[in-house]
């Protein structure tokens, strides 16, 4: 009942290696099946995201012995030479493997600390592996524990609460002013990568109407079609500015796109309804005077980057709290694991003692002539009762005392001690 993990992530492997070792859903299924059919693992689960590829498994023998085989399998499966892959791979076993997975699910191991997506990706990987029959009792329990730990970290800490990108920080700020955006409209000036990121965030937050303005109408059309927006002709400020509640500008320009007078006129037309402006252009797209207008809130790239830096710091402060939750769940899982293993050990010990008792009776008691068969049966019964009473208390304590289970770190050592001349099950 060992657990092994072999994988790589954004910390250990450059993107060129990560993209070669990533798994599609179909590849994950196939790899999982192959690992089981080749007898490398009994239970398998492949977790593959843009920043990590990891294989979790329960090997049929001691985990440390199967890790090299697993690395070789990954190298062959993705046709990546071992000298390239080997330096990027990490191997974790048992407690470390459990802790690693729980930290991954909590977002503590993500490139963007505390990101929310990873919990969904772990859930999806587990669902797929479970449906394909890749998981068994150990991985089922392990991944259920990971999801539970990840969920607790998200609800009980602020690890994932604050925006960590300029785009999401801007959209969250708009919500500080307007509340929910599902009845609001936004105008996006420019159709580059940054504009697209902000549009994605606005759509995620349910913005009701989206207008796109760009010098090149083709690109504006593309973006509007992709995200369900309307294209407005570049420079038609009179029509465009009075409507939106949020304006996002990311245009390459030497001169400000929106001058104070332009916005002032628009504010008069819109009855001074609040206007939130995200100026993501460098040089700035919005005239500095716009920020001084009544009910206009302007945030430029520097303002938003500073917020992101503050938020990153705030998230980092939450790491000890999140780690403590992870440790609680690691302890819970290991306790369960120990209870299952120890219950098995007690049963094996019972069988072994009964066999020893049978041999003992056969060798010693049967040679005593004056004992009748009834007497011998009585002696056997008494010996059975004594053996049961010897095992009963430890078995009950193992079932009832979590701390005791935690203290017994190495069940294999116990097995070797009491069942040394026997083959391991």
């Amino acid at each position: 009942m060992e657990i092994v993990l072999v994988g790589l992530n954004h910390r250990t492997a450059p993107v060129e290696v990560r993209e070669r070792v990533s798994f599609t859903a179909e590849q994950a299924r196939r790899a999982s099946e192959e690992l089981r059919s080749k007898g490398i693992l009994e239970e398998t689960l492949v977790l593959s995201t843009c920043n990590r590829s990891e294989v979790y498994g329960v090997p049929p023998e001691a985990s440390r012995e199967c890790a090299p085989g697993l690395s070789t399998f990954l190298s062959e499966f993705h046709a990546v030479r071992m000298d390239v892959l080997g330096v990027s791979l990490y191997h974790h076993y048992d407690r470390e493997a459990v802790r690693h997975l729980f930290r991954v699910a909590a977002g503590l191991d993500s490139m963007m600390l505390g990101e929310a997506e990873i919990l969904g990706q772990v859930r999806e990987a587990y669902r797929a592996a479970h449906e394909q029959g890749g998981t068994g009792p150990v991985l089922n329990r392990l991944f259920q524990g990971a999801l539970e730990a990840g969920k607790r970290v998200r609800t009980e800490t602020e690890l994932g609460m604050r925006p960590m990108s300029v785009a999401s920080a801007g959209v969250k700020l708009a919500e500080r002013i307007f509340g929910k955006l599902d009845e609001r409209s936004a105008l996006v000036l420019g159709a580059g990568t940054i504009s697209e990121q902000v549009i994605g965030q606005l759509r995620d937050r349910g913005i009701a109407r989206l207008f796109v303005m760009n010098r090149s109408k083709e690109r504006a059309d593309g973006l509007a079609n992709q995200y369900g927006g309307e294209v407005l002709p570049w420079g038609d400020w009179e029509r465009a500015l009075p409507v939106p509640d949020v304006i996002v500008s990311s245009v390459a320009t030497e001169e400000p796109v929106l001058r104070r007078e332009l916005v002032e006129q628009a504010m008069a037309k819109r009855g001074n309804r609040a206007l939130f402006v995200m100026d993501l252009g460098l040089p700035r797209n919005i005239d500095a005077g716009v920020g001084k207008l009544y009910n206009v809130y302007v945030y430029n790239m520097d303002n938003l980057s500073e917020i992101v830096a503050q938020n990153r710091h705030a998230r980092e402060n939450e790491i000890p709290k999140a780690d403590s939750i992870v440790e609680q769940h690691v302890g819970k899982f290991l306790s369960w694991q120990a209870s299952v293993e120890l219950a098995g050990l007690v049963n094996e010990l019972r069988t072994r003692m009964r066999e020893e008792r049978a041999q003992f009776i056969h060798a010693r008691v049967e040679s005593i002539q004056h004992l009748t068969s009834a007497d011998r049966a009585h002696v056997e019964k008494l010996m059975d009762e004594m053996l049961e009473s010897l095992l009963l208390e430890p078995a009950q304590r193992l079932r009832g005392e979590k701390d005791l289970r935690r203290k017994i770190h190495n069940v294999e050592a116990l097995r070797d001690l009491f069942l040394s001349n026997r083959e391991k099950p």
Partner: protein
Amino acid sequence: MHYALFISTAVGYALSFALYLIFLNTGKALTGRLGTLLLAGGLVTHYFALLERSRGLHTVPYHDLYGSMSLFGWLLALTYLGLELYHRQRSVGALVLPFILVFFVAAHLAPADKLSPPDAHGPTFAFHVALSILAYSAFALSFVLSLLFLGEERLLRNHQLGDVVWRLPPLELLERMSRSSVLVGLVSITIGTALGFLWVDRLSDKYSFYDPKYAITLLVLLLYLAYFRLARTTAWRGARASKLCVFNFVIVFLSFTVVNFYLSHSHRYF
């Protein structure tokens, strides 16, 4: 019995305040819900404390400074709870509960000073007083909401986003909550004042018609009507309307203190 009710009310409000504060800091929904539950519990025990005391003294709660302040605290809590449930927003609780607690506790410290009993009691007079105090508490709530709006607006405008700004209600919601509160106050003060005039009219042979309280109440009514109207106009929408709301409450405060104590002869505690 009265002491037990006082203690349970104070503890209920204090715990509710602590939970609202934790909710503001951590955003844990369960903590916020518990804060609301404890506030509701505090409201119930506060009601029975008022009832118990009134029965004991054979008079209405607003007969002395104690009762008047305590009733104000209770109506403030009730108005806030109503707004919280209506707007589904708990972040303001941590800022309103201290006022409720202060009024509730300060009522106990108030000096023993009673009004001379009015010549005629009855439901008209009771509704007149209760609705007037309800209006004051609703205006107090809109004052807190407007202050909060101005503070948050300044922080957002100056790009000074600390930990708390992410937890506070959005500016537009604060505006809406403030308007709702003012609406409650306006309706209450209009009906309450009308009932007051009705009551005085019945006793016109015994009371002089003029009281400075009438003028200041009319002024308060006009100022809040102006706020209610201006808060949606181009020129006043946003911070300006909130500043007007803060100013209006200064007048309400003067009405409740200076006018009641030193100028009015029949409105000492309401």
